[in-house]
C-alpha cells in the first residue's frame, strides 16, 4: 500500500488492470488451444446465466464467499491460511456426524446444528496449525498444506471405513429427509418467483451473505478486528500496544477455519445430503484467488466469489458445448492469483511512477 497513491487508483484502477491482464493472458491460452476467445466468453456467460445455470452459479458463489472470507480474515492478521480445503473437508465430516446422529425434525434446527458443527470442525482443523504458529513458530503455510493432505487421507479412510454407507461407494448414508435445507426454488417460491427446481443453490447463499456482513463488522467495527489489523500491519507495534500475538493468531485462524468450514453447510448438507469423497472440489484454494481479488474486503470478496461462480459454472458449459476441459477455469484462477497476487507490482510500480510524478508536478 502506498500512501502517495490516490485511493481510486489503489483500490480501483490497479485491481482492474491486474484483472484485465489476467483475462488477456487467459485469452491467449484460449487462442493457443485453437479456440475463439469471444466465443468462449459468450458460451461461459450464457452457461452461467441461463435459467438452469444461474442456480449452479449461485451455488458455487456460496462456496467461494465462505472460503474467500476465510482467507481474507486470516490475511488481515497477516496469516496465509492455505488450509481451507482441509478445514472445509473436515467440516463436512462434522456436518455428516451431526446429521446422522439424530433424526432432526425440522430443517431450521438442522441448519442451526449443521452450521455449528461445520464451524466447530473447521475451526478445530485450523486450531493445530494456529497453535503451532503462535507457540512454536512453525510456518503456518506449510502446516496448513500438510493438514490439507492429512485431511484428505483421513476423509478417505472414514468414507471407506467407519462412515461408509451400505454398498461399495465411498460415501456416507443419506441424511434424514426432514433435515433437507430449503433450496433456492423453495425460498423464491415463498415470494412467488420462479426458479429452477433442480438447482443446487440453497439457503446457505443467504448464510454466506450474512457471514460477509458479520466479517465486515468484525474487521472494521470491533476492537478485536482492530487488533487483528494492527497485528497484521506490524507485529512489533501490536505487541508494544499490548496485543497478544498468541491470542490474535489463534482467534484469526479459528474464525478463518470456521468460515471455511461453513461451506460444508452448502455442499454436504444443502446439496449432496450425504458426505461424498471430494466434496470440497478445490473451493478452499479458489478462496485464495477470491480474497486476493477482493482485496480482503467482504464486498470485494462477494463480488469476486460471484465472478468465480460464473467462471466455474461457465467452465462446465465450455466442456459441454465446446469440448474445452474444465481445467480452463483452473488456468484462469491461476492467472488471477498470479496477476493480482504475486505479479501485482507489474502494474503497481508503473502506476506509482505515473501518479506520484503527476502529483509532484501538480503541487
Amino acid at each position, binding site marked *: 500500500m502506498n500512501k502517495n497513491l490516490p485511493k481510486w487508483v489503489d483500490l480501483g484502477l490497479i485491481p482492474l488492470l491486474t484483472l484485465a491482464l489476467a483475462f488477456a493472458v487467459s485469452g491467449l491460452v484460449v487462442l493457443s488451444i485453437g479456440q475463439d476467445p469471444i466465443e468462449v466468453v459468450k458460451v461461459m456467460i450464457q452457461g452461467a446465466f441461463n435459467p438452469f445455470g444461474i442456480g449452479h452459479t449461485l451455488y458455487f458463489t456460496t462456496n467461494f464467499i465462505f472460503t474467500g472470507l476465510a482467507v481474507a480474515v486470516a490475511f488481515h492478521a497477516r496469516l496465509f491460511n492455505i488450509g481451507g480445503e482441509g478445514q472445509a473437508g473436515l467440516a463436512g465430516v462434522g456436518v455428516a456426524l451431526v446429521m446422522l446422529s439424530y433424526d432432526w425434525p425440522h430443517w431450521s434446527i438442522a441448519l442451526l446444528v449443521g452450521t455449528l458443527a461445520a464451524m466447530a470442525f473447521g475451526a478445530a482443523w485450523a486450531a493445530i496449525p494456529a497453535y*503451532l504458529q503462535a507457540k512454536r513458530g512453525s510456518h503456518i503455510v506449510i502446516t496448513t498444506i*500438510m493438514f490439507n*493432505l492429512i485431511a484428505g487421507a483421513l476423509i478417505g*479412510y472414514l468414507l471407506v471405513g467407519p462412515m461408509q454407507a451400505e454398498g461399495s461407494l465411498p460415501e456416507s448414508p443419506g441424511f434424514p429427509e426432514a433435515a433437507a435445507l430449503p433450496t433456492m426454488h423453495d425460498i423464491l417460491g415463498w415470494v412467488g418467483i420462479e426458479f429452477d427446481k433442480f438447482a443446487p443453490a440453497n439457503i446457505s447463499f443467504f448464510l454466506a451473505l450474512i457471514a460477509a456482513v458479520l466479517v465486515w463488522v468484525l474487521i472494521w467495527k470491533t476492537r478485536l478486528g482492530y487488533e487483528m489489523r494492527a497485528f497484521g500491519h506490524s507485529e512489533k507495534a501490536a505487541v508494544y500496544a499490548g496485543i497478544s500475538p498468541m491470542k490474535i493468531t489463534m482467534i484469526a485462524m479459528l474464525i478463518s477455519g470456521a468460515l471455511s468450514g461453513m461451506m460444508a453447510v452448502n455442499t454436504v448438507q444443502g446439496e449432496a445430503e450425504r458426505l461424498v469423497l471430494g466434496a470440497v472440489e478445490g473451493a478452499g484454494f479458489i478462496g485464495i484467488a477470491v480474497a486476493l481479488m477482493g482485496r480482503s474486503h467482504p464486498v470485494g470478496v462477494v463480488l469476486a466469489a460471484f465472478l468465480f461462480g460464473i467462471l466455474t459454472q461457465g467452465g462446465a458449459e465450455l466442456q459441454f458445448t465446446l469440448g474445452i*476441459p474444465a481445467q480452463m*477455469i483452473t488456468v484462469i*484462477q491461476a492467472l488471477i492469483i*498470479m496477476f493480482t497476487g504475486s*505479479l501485482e*507490482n507489474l502494474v503497481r510500480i508503473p502506476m506509482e511512477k505515473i501518479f506520484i510524478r503527476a502529483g509532484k508536478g501538480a503541487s
Partner: protein
Amino acid sequence: MMDFLTNDLLQLSDSAVRFATPLLLACLAGLYSERAGIFDIGLEGKMLVAAFAAGAFSAIAGMPAYDGGWEMGAWSVWIGLGAAIIASIMFSMIHAFASITLRGNQLISGVAINFFAAGITVLIGQYWFRMGGQTPQLRSGQRFEPITLPFAEELKDVPVLGDIYYQLISGHNIIVYMAFAIVALTWWVLYRTRFGLRMRAVGENPGAVDTAGISVVKLRYSALIITGILCGLAGAYLSLGTSAAGFGKDMTAGRGFIALAALIFAKWKPITAMWATLLFGMLEAIGNKYQTLDLGFIVLPGQFMQALPYILTVVILAGFVGKAIPPKAGGEPYVKER
C-alpha cells in the same frame, strides 16, 4: 525369516528407491531455492509441467512422420527429458521474476504456479492428443529403461550381498542413478564451492552478500535455474521412468508437497534429504504393498501410511523432535539499499 529379509524387505527397499527418486530430485530442487532465500511451494507444479512436457515430447519425437511425429527413435526419450527441463525452468523463471524482480509474495506465486500447471497440462494435452489430458502410451526408445549394472547377473547367486546388488542397486533407470549422484554433487556445491557459500549466505543475510559486492539478484536467479532443472528431472522421471509410461493428469499427486515436507524434515541439508526421501519412499512402498498394516497390537489403515509423511513433518516443524529452522531470509524479498 531369511525369506522375509531377502524377498520382502529387498522388494520393499527396491520400490522405496523408485518412489524416493522423484521426491529426492524435487527435494533437492527446493533445497537450492530455499537455501537462496526463495520459498518454493510450487515444486508440485513444476514437476507436473515437466512430467507433461516429457511425456508429450517423447511421444511426438517417437511417432512416425505420417502421424506428425519426428521419427527420432531411441533419441525420443532424451528429447522428452530436454523438454521437461526447459518447461520446468520456464516455470521457475516465472517464480523468479515474481519473487526476485517484482518482489512479490513468494507463497502466492507458488500457489499460482501449481494451479497453472494443473490446468495448462490438461488443456494442451487434450488439444494435442485428444486423450482426455493423457499423453500417448510410450514405447521402447521413448522412455528410460532399467539398466543392469556390470556383473549383476554373475553375482546374483552370492548370498545377501549378491541379492542386494542385483535386486536393490542394479536394475534402475538412469535418472535414479543421477538423483543419487546429484545428492553428492549438491553437498559438494553447497559446502565446498564459492557459489555454494554465497548461495547459503544469500538465504541467511542478503544484505551482507550485497555489501560484499555480489549480486543478490544474480545468485537467486542462478539458484532458481538449478531448481528448474531438478524439478524437470523429477517430472521426467514420473512420465518416462515409471510403469506409467506417459503423462496422466495430476500425476504428481502431491509429491511436490511430500518433497517439501522432506526438505523441512531434512532441515535443508542434502544428505539428510536423501535419507528423508528414502524414508518417505519406504512409507509409500509399504502403503502400496499392504492395504492395512497389522502390527499385532494395532491395525493401521493404508491411509495412515499415506498421511504419515505429513504428520511427521508437522511434528518436526513443531520442534518437538529437533527443531527445523529455515534459512533466515526465506520468503522476504530483498530490497537493495539506496
